[in-house]
């Protein structure tokens, strides 16, 4: 079986004959990680599936422009985050909500989603995360659940490591406060 390193994948993507096969390998390699990244932002499975498809489609259309300046995974995660934010903004517009508002409106989707079987504590944690501003929510998800390194997050989100650390610290504090205040009710 052929071993695909990132370098060989990029080389194969630049060759018309091997491009398609290399992209299938990319889908296989990153689909699960990208899915969970997207799912934590858009919450419902159906929406995450749509956004994941859009993400790979966008990557396929623009693969000729990828010259390996950044890591392939970084490039794909950046597309996934952007597509997820675009999707959330469309939902907000449909519901006539301000684009600056938090994503609490997704709480209902979470409770009604057939593919959520979390307990009360997990539901409360998700609701607390949804009360965060969008950027803090993404940072918190990446750091808390996936334990993504700040340097990698910095490349994906195009934000300095210092700002990301501060953002995570503030987000964690807010989540803690939310859980404490809501568990007392």
């Amino acid at each position, binding site marked *: 079986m052929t071993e695909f390193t990132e370098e060989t994948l990029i080389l194969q993507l630049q060759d018309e004959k091997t491009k*398609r096969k290399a*992209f*299938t390998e990319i*889908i*296989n390699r990153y*689909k*699960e990680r990208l*899915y*969970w990244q997207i*799912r*934590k932002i858009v919450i419902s*499975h159906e929406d995450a*599936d749509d956004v*994941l*498809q859009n993400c*790979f*489609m966008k990557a*396929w*259309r623009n693969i000729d422009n990828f010259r390996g300046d950044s890591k392939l995974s970084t490039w794909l995660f950046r597309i996934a985050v952007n597509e997820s934010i675009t999707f959330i903004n469309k939902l907000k517009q449909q519901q006539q909500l301000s684009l600056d508002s938090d994503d609490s409106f997704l709480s209902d989707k979470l409770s009604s*989603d057939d*593919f*959520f*079987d*979390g*307990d009360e*504590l*997990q*539901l*409360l*944690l*998700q609701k607390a995360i949804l009360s965060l501003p969008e950027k803090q929510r993404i940072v918190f998800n990446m750091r*808390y*659940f996936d334990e993504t390194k700040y340097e990698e997050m910095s490349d994906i989100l195009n934000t300095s490591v210092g700002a990301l650390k501060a953002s995570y610290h503030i987000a964690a504090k807010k*989540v*803690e406060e939310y*859980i*404490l205040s809501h*568990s007392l009710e």
Partner: protein
Amino acid sequence: MNEFDEIKDFGTKKTGMKVPDNYFEDFTARMNALIDEEDAKEEETSTPKIEMQPQMPYSEANDQIEDQSKEGKKVSFNSVLSKVKPFMYMAAMYIALFICFKFFIKETTNQELRVDNEIFAEEQYIIEDQMYASMNDYDIMEYLYANAE
């Protein structure tokens, strides 16, 4: 230990989210089918780019177009030419009409001017003849007298 500490120490840090059975197993095939569909649509809508050189022979141009068309869907030079032909004929017809019209206008104008001048000169003689014919001796004397003053 409060509830947040409990969450922090969750260990697996589960989200409580799950996916349908075989979702990831089937995803690659679904995605590949979508990409194929998209590529097919793109091929249908795209037109071959023809780079004609000024002295490119017909056969070479035809080959170039056929090379650029993909997967058996060939667009020949003849079919491109047959589409362009009516427009070329129409343009040639307009040019010919314009040249004829311009030539006709020029000829007519010259002819009219020439005729006008001849008529004018002829009319002048007739007027003078009539004028002199209608004069009697008295008129001639009067005319000479008036001019002498």
